Each structure stands twice: as C-alpha cells, then as structure tokens.
C-alpha cells in the first residue's frame, strides 16, 4: 500500500509541474494550448542537454528555457500582435512535436542522466508518511513545493490577488494601476518554464530516456486536468494524483482485463466533460447556494477573461 501510494506520487510529479504552470498561465487569462508540444520538446531538449553536460541539472535549465520560449511566443503573438491564443498555441503544439522528433531522432534509446534519489533523513523514518512523502528525489519534493507555493501565492498574497484580477476583470485591474499585459506575459512565461521542467522530469526522472512517445498525450491530459480541477491549485493537484492512480491501476489490471491499459488513460477526458456538465447544471449550482461553505469546492468557473485580448482604450 505504502509503496503503491509512493509510486503514484512520484509518477504524478511531472504532471503537477505542468498543470501548476498551466493554471498560473490560464488564471492570468492566457491559455497555453501548446502543452502537448512544449512537454515533448522540453523532454527531448532536457535529455540531450543533460547528456552533453553530464548533469541532470543542466537539462532541467534547458528544458525550462524551451518551455518559457514557447510561452513567450504565445504571449508576444497574443498581446502585441492580437493573434488568437488558441491559434498560436495549436500551431506551436504541432510544430514542437515535430521539432522534438526531428532533433531527438539520434538520441532514441540512448542511456542518459537521471535524478539521484534523496531520502530525507529522520523524516523518512516516520511510519507510513515517511515512505510515502519523504523517500523520493528533488523532482518529487519540488512538486510538493510547486503546489504549496502556487496556492499560497494565489490566495494569500497581493501579487496573487492581482494575478486573479487580470484574468477575471482586466479592465478593473488596469484601473487600479496593475500593468495587465506585462503581468500576463510574465505569468505565461513562468507557466511555460514550469511545463518545461515537467518535460525534463519525464526524460530525466520518471520515464528516463528519450523516445517520441515518451510524453504521448500527457500535454492534452494536463490541459484537461487543469479544467477538471477548476483552476484551483489543490484540486488540480488532486486531479494529477487521481490520474496517477488510474495509470497504476491500468498497469495492474492489464493481466485481468487485457486492453484496459489502452482505454483507462483516456479517462481524464470523459471525467473532465462530466465535471464541466455537472457544474453547469441547475441543481448543482443550487447546492452551492445552500451550502456556502462548500461553494469554493463546488464551482468550476473559468477565469472571466480567459482567452481574451486586453486593450486599453
């Protein structure tokens, strides 16, 4: 049991980075639709750079730079040139997928760097929790930090308030003197860098190595989990662990129900659709009215100005 939960948490770490990054970006109003491509290109770049530099750390830096660059192109095109976010994100998704295959071709099957394990002394000896939470490596500990810092920043700081403001009602934020477009650029690039770290976490930790199918569909799945989690960092993280559990379950059920390994990984999509339909249903909204304390957990409202361009007139 401990070992299973521990492996779910470790396997979900890259998705946590990717979804936290996307949540930050979308909260500020910018959809980074390129995730499927960003993840793959950064996984490839991270692997290759770590291989050349003989250290996994360099790979993570390079991968973050790739993710940030793609996000920067989206921010520039959307904010400066007023191009639809979906259009740029979609083009970049397909382009980055092919770039990863093109440049990564000669690295398929090569043995590369990997992140060393780093159990935390004393803490790892705590019964149950020690094994589950503190017997991992820096990638996994970093994913805990990402969840904690993102949700603390969103709901406990002034910067987080402004971040939500520019995604919900940019006109209002602008009137209060918040530089809407500058902040959107910053958060989009930051979110992109986190997606890049997610890519490197796959190629240098969770799945080790590079091949075209290494992160297949995980970018699209990350997008679905952000929505499933209602743009709330903790719920999004729970979505990642739920997906991790599904993957482990699919792996173990393979012998009993052949074929389930191929079918279970698509579960996030029907779940996302179901969640979206559910929360827009009248009786469900009424539930939130009746129990105001639960409301924060029941709503699944996208940021008001998501996907739109802000122009000061």
């Amino acid at each position, binding site marked *: 049991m401990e070992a299973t939960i521990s492996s779910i948490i470790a396997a979900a770490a890259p998705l946590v980075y990717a979804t936290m990054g996307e949540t930050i970006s979308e909260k500020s109003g910018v959809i980074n639709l390129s995730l499927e491509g960003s993840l793959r290109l950064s996984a490839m770049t991270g692997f290759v750079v770590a291989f050349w530099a003989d250290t996994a750390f360099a790979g993570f830096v390079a991968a973050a730079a790739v993710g940030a660059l793609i996000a920067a192109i989206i921010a520039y095109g959307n904010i400066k040139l007023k191009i639809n976010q979906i259009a*740029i994100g979609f083009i970049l998704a397909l382009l980055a997928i*092919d770039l990863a295959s093109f440049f990564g071709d000669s690295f398929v099957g090569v043995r590369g760097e990997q992140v060393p394990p780093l159990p935390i002394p004393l803490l790892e000896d705590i019964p149950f929790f020690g094994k589950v939470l503190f017997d991992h490596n820096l990638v996994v500990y970093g994913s805990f930090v990402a969840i904690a810092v993102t949700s603390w920043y969103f709901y406990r700081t002034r910067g987080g308030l402004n971040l939500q403001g520019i995604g919900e009602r940019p006109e209002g934020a602008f009137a209060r003197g918040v530089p809407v477009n500058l902040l959107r650029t910053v958060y989009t690039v930051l979110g992109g860098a986190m997606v890049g770290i997610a890519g490197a976490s796959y190629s240098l930790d969770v799945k080790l190595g590079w091949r075209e199918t290494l992160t297949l569909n995980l970018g699209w799945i990350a997008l*679905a989990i952000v929505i499933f989690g209602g743009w709330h960092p903790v719920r999004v993280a729970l979505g990642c662990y739920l997906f991790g559990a599904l993957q482990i379950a699919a792996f173990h059920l393979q012998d009993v129900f*052949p074929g389930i390994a191929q079918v279970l990984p*698509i579960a996030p999509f*029907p779940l996302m*659709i179901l969640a979206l339909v559910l929360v827009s249903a009248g009786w469900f909204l009424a539930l939130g009215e009746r129990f105001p304390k639960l409301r924060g957990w029941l709503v699944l409202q996208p940021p008001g100005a998501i996907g739109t361009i802000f122009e000061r007139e």
Partner: protein
Amino acid sequence: MTARSTNRFVPTVVALAYALLVAMVLLALAGAPPIEALLRIVDGSLGSWDRVAATLLAWSPLVLASAGLVVTFAAGMWNIGVEGQIIMGAIAASWVAREVSADAAILVLATIVAGAVGGALWALLAGVLRTHGGVNEIFGGLGLDFLAAGIAIYLVIGPWKRQGVASTSGTEIFPDASFMPTMELFGADIPIVAVTLAILGTVGVYFLLRGTRFGLRLKAVGRSPRSAFIIGIPNNAYILSAFLVGGALAGVAGTVQVTGFHHKLVPAISGGYGFLGILVVLLAGFSAKWIGPIALFFIVVSAGSTQLELRLDLDSSFGGVLLGVIVLFVVFGTAFSQQRAKRRADTAGAEP
C-alpha cells in the same frame, strides 16, 4: 474584411520566403544537402503516377476535413474535435462495410453516407455540450477526440478483432465490394471517387458560405453572436448546424480513410488529417477558396518527407517542421502587417 484580404498576399510571400530559409538552415544543421532534400520531397510525392495517385488519396481526406473546418470556423467555433469526427465517420463506414452485403455501388454509397452521419453526430455532441452543457468546444472537442480514439482501439482489439489474434494492427480486410473505386490512368490507380468527394465538398462549402442565406447568417453568428441574436438569428441553432455540416464532411474523410486507403479499421485511422486541416484552414485565412491548393502543398511536403528518411537518413518529421514553421510565419507575418497598417491608420486619422 476587404482590407484584410488585400493585405494577405505580400506578408504570405515574405513569410514563405523566410520559412524556406529556416528549412534550409534546419537541413544544413542536420547535415543534409538542402537543395537535394527539397527536390527529394517533390520527387517523393509527385515523381511517378503511382506517387501522384497516393498523394491524391491523402489529399482527399485532408481537403474534406479542412472544408468541414471552414464551416465551423465561420460559426466562430474552434472545432478541435475534428479528429474524433473523422474517427467516428471511419467507424460508422467500417460497420457498414463489415455488416452490410449489397452491390458495390450501393455499398460504397452507403459507407459514404454512414461516414457523414457518424461524423455529424459526433460533432453534434461537441456542439450540444457547447450550447447546452457549458463545455467550451475546444476542450469538449479534445475530450471527444480521445474518446473516439479509445472506441476505435476498443473495436480493433475487442469485438472486431481478427480471427484468433487481438492486435492493434487493425481489423480483417473489408470485402472487396466496399472498396472506394479507383480509375486506372497512366498505369496508376487514381482515386477518382475520393477526389470527386473532396472537390464537391470544397465547392459546396464555398457556395454555402458565399451564396446562401444560411451561410450569411452563419457568418453573422460567427462574427458577433450578440448582434446576430439581436437581429433575430437563433445562435444555437446555427452553431449546431455548423457542427453537423462540418462533422459530416470530416466523417466522409473518415470513410475515405477506411474504404479508400486502409481497407480496414486501424487505431490511428484519422491519419492526423483533422489537426493538419486546422493548419490548412489557418493558412487559407478561413476561406474555402484556397484549401485545395494549400492541402496539396501540405500533402506533397509530408508525403515527400518520408523519402528523406529513406534516401538521406533524415527523420520524416522534417515535413511537419517545415509546415509548422510556414504556418507560424504566415500567421505572425499577417498579424504584424495588420498591426502596422492599423497603427498607420490611427496616426493618419489623428492628423487633421
């Protein structure tokens, strides 16, 4: 709108030139002779009549999917679900091809109709989720894509598996009578029915959007749902109709994939033509007029790049890289010149 269309030509040519330059640099980086590689691409897709036939067979579903996307874009919808619509069209056509026994002509017609219905219903689902379920069509469509892919895999390894073996290589080959007919020309099997369907689809969409009351009102909904609503156009009905028409065309693309190309159902039946179609339509400026030639260019590049892998030991993804760079440059180039024109107009307007 007119200002936009006159503005498109120059930035497109400039962007294409830059994209070609990037292609040269990429090829040089990968250690391949650039000019030879580009010639190989053309030779690989148009170098013989057999290759022309193969290119046309790939061109047809891409054009059909793109034509469908033009309709949904006209309604202001990002039909990311197009991949799933192709798959469901393919599944419906496969069902007819496997289960129905009839004369070849009737059977082929039935598979085309089935494909259209399968694609249309799957698109309608995305549409209803959008209009009545509060699910954005981009994410709903993405979800339905994966769901459709899951159903295809399930059928291939489950109920429709080949005798004795459950493998992902596909179902049993369909009976000959269901094959989409080809015509022997210059010693090659030219896919005449598929090409005809593609041309009919494109021309149909062109006139639907340009010359009919439905098309004009649909475009009104796409441009400004609020004003369309105020003048009495039922937004939802038009959005759902756009999904039906777009999905039907994508579904026929699925029919071409199963009865014209694979002659069986395989898991990756869509061939990626749905997502590629979105790039085609972006490059075509959302108009049906140019999707035929642009789709041909896309297929020439992507089919030709498989030759690069064989002859120059370059990864075949080069074609995809080249196409992605071109679309990115054209979209950015057009937007850039639009912004510049707008700034000029603003400053000119400010002066007395």
